[in-house]
């Protein structure tokens, strides 16, 4: 594979082609459609494109158009650009991009971070941006030395002409380079020449994160800023009926109480005054149409729906016929609950609204969408609205809301306050604020032939769509099927000879949203657990069964074999220990995991996860390891503890005492193995999560014979 040479105009097309199925361009109705604004490029520096600036002192600033929520794009994207630029790594720093169409996701057409696509989508554009800057610097030096550009080379922020022994620092060339025209075609490096890409370089954001100076939106402080807390109706779809704000307004520091539609805001001089003010509000609610909702009622409704087929999402062969003539049929149901994202930094937003302009600070994953919503809410020309992306204290998809819920709420409060305002959601607000991973019910059946091989596989899925009613609908819902509801199942890599996946999309008064790994967070649990059931029913080793069904799928098999081998699958275990295995392909990456458990003192102890990943060419292997370590903990938390439940229309949980988090003493060892690969770099933020729950539950079955089909596990499931 030679060094690709890509003309500047073509990068969007090429990256989309590399993306295959990602060739979708969302058209966001309210976003500014203006072209790249030259006002974006800061003065004084050499800024050949929107992604890099080189100062005269040699500092290289990479403009990061992705949100940093821990998954490491700030460092990875810098590495991609800096490698092609041949920059001296210690001189490289970053800034978060403003909102502008030039920063749109090349595949999705809007500026956003999600779908584990940052590296995938931005690899070529970042490399191209670095290569372009390098080309101009080389040309500037060549011009000064009256030599050919091709006679020069670059190394660690120097252009060097070996023949004459001359060298010039990038900083010294910046002025001259700024005056040159970008050539039409700029070659990219052959991967064998990478100096930075592929190395476990230290993260650029770590120092500020360990000394307390990293700025999250909740940390932003403006002169004269007020703080607002909002009382939200306890049932989704309700609203305030009567507001008695007298006691609240009497609290020193409280400036205003205002109904902003999504709730009743208390605007005050400090968080504590706002909190005391909110506690003093006397509110009557019209609870609305969902006051009778309960988890028990929903579960019963979903179970009933699963009795019959939904809309067909996939049909291969004659699944019903093959099921009817099967020698043995397994027919079971799996249930997964609503899940909160619960990022460590509760939702918040700072808005500085002036007469004809606005500045917003938010840890957003959805720049274009939030910018458009904020502008529309304030009735301002989007060109006059600046949205600053800060660090995110966790996102997991919650900060990518098509409804821009907390952003719009903050703008409305700013409109009332007529002063800069920071909206803060408390943990309780955040936990009860909706936009959960949907609740899911699966009915899944396998028909085995006389030899125990799978003859038919039928999977009925019941749950909500969070895409319907959003501008994403035309792109993601096809023929009535929401792709995110059935992903991981309808597009399974397993070779089932007769296959049906069908979907009942429900309408429930609980707002839902994508949650780290989206549909795969439920389909992988169901499929990998049920496959384990089939393996045991047909007396086949779970690994062997997967090998058979994944024949001809080298990337799936590759991680499966690697994880199995490293975990010692098939070798004797310590007495009282058991292993469970799972493999899943999501967001173009492949992950397999083996969990090892035992019972200690009568309680489940998760000793270790052995994880193998194929995410194509790795930019920073340390980031990959970190993301998979994190996915173990994130996945385990959901498996063992997490559920958002409803009673009388209200969300029951409110904080970490009843939405329990995995803590350090329960974290297993994690061993990560990365498959070397030359394939295009694919995602790592989400692909680790789906395999964690089934690997664990398969291990529990191996140890106890108890098949666990409902998440989260109950206390009695965790005891021997």
């Amino acid at each position: 594979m030679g060094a690709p040479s890509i003309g500047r105009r073509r990068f969007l097309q090429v990256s989309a082609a590399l993306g295959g199925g990602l060739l979708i361009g969302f058209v966001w109705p309210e976003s500014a459609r203006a072209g790249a604004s030259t006002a974006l490029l800061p003065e004084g520096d050499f800024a050949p494109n929107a992604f890099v600036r080189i100062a005269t002192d040699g500092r290289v600033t990479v403009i990061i158009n992705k949100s940093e929520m821990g998954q490491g794009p700030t460092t990875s994207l810098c590495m991609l650009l800096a490698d092609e630029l041949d920059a001296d790594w210690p001189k490289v720093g970053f800034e978060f991009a403003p909102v502008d169409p030039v920063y749109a996701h090349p595949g999705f057409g809007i500026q956003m971070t999600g779908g584990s696509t940052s590296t995938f989508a931005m690899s070529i554009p970042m490399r191209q941006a670095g290569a372009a800057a390098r080309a101009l610097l080389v040309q500037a030096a060549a011009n000064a030395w009256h030599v050919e550009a091709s006679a020069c080379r670059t190394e660690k922020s120097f252009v060097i002409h070996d023949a004459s022994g001359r060298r010039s620092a990038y900083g010294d060339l910046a002025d001259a380079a700024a005056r040159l025209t970008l050539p039409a075609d700029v070659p990219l490096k052959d991967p064998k020449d990478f100096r930075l890409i592929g190395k476990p370089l230290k993260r650029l954001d770590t120092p500020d994160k360990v000394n307390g100076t990293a700025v999250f939106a909740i940390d932003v402080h403006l002169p004269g800023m007020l703080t607002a807390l909002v009382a939200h109706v306890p049932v989704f779809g309700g609203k305030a009926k009567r507001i008695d704000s007298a006691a609240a307004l009497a609290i020193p520091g409280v400036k205003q109480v205002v109904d902003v539609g999504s709730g009743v805001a208390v605007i005050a001089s400090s968080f504590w005054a706002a909190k005391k003010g909110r506690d003093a509000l006397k509110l009557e609610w019209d609870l609305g149409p969902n006051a009778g909702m309960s988890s028990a009622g929903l579960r019963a409704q979903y179970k009933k729906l699963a009795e019959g087929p939904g809309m067909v999402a996939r049909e291969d062969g004659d699944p019903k016929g093959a099921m009817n003539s099967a020698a043995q049929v397994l027919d079971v149901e799996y249930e997964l609950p609503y899940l909160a994202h619960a990022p460590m930094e509760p939702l918040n937003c700072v808005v500085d609204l002036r007469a004809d302009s606005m500045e917003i600070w938010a840890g957003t994953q959805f720049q274009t969408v939030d910018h458009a919503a904020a502008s529309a809410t304030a009735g301002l020309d989007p060109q006059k609205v600046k949205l600053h992306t800060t660090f995110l204290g966790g996102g997991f998809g919650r900060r990518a809301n098509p409804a821009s819920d907390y952003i719009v709420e903050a703008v409305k409060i700013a409109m009332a306050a007529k002063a800069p305002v920071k909206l803060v959601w408390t943990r309780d607000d955040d936990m009860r604020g909706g936009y959960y991973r949907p609740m899911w019910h699966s009915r899944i059946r396998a028909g085995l032939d006389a030899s125990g091989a799978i003859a038919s596989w039928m999977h009925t899925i019941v749950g909500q769509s969070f895409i319907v009613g959003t501008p994403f609908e035309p792109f993601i819902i096809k023929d009535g099927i929401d792709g995110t509801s059935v992903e991981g199942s309808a597009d399974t890599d397993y070779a089932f000879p007769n296959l049906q996946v069908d979907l009942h999309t429900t309408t429930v008064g609980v707002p839902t949203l994508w949650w780290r790994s989206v549909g795969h967070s439920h389909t992988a649990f169901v499929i990998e657990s049920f496959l384990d059931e089939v393996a045991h029913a047909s007396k086949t080793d779970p690994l062997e069964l997967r090998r058979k069904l994944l024949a001809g799928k080298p990337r799936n098999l590759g991680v499966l074999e690697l994880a199995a081998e490293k975990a010692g699958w098939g070798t004797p275990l310590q007495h009282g220990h058991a292993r469970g295995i799972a493999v899943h392909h999501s967001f173009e990456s492949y992950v397999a995991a083996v969990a090892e458990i035992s019972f200690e003192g009568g309680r489940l102890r998760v000793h270790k996860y052995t994880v193998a990943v194929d995410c194509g060419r790795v930019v920073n292997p340390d980031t990959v390891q970190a993301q998979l370590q994190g996915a173990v903990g994130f996945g385990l938390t959901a498996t063992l503890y997490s559920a958002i439940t409803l009673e009388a229309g209200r969300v029951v949980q409110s904080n970490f005492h009843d939405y329990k988090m995995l803590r350090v003493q329960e974290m297993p060892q994690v061993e990560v193995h990365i498959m070397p690969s030359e394939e295009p770099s694919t995602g790592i933020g989400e692909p680790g999560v789906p395999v964690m729950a089934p690997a664990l539950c398969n291990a529990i079955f191996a140890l106890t014979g108890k098949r666990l089909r409902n998440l989260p596990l109950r206390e009695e499931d965790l005891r021997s």
Partner: protein
Amino acid sequence: MAIELNVNGEKRTLDVDPSTPLLWVLRETLELTGTKFGCGAAQCGACTVHLDGHAVRSCVVPVSAVAGKKVTTIEVSGNREVSALQKAWTAIDVPQCGYCQPGQIMSAAVLLAETTTPSDSDIDACMSGNVCRCATYVRIRSAIHDAAASLKGGK
């Protein structure tokens, strides 16, 4: 009401509602935003600071209880344990989103002040109040061991 605090070695006299949790006095009045708000209920540890050398969850400590005491936050300079932990945290890139990490470091600092060779169960006992949603726990544990070793070795 005027309250005198000693924060990171500096005496400050502040006019604040005495019932205000120390967390908000630090973050808003003093603009020391390294200490984080995660739950407001002593459930997550993101707000951990030291009060006379002991770890407290500043989200539930009323500032009135702090008068005359020494408050140490993540912004402190020259604290032996905090510095060693920050170095160890950086050496193996512990943080992901980073929001919980100041609290993690402040809790771990108490452990290292009280024991030179913390065992894994010491780490469990000390750090179980600090939630990390990104689940960086494997590296937190490693970095604590590294920091302890570096302090023992006199680095």
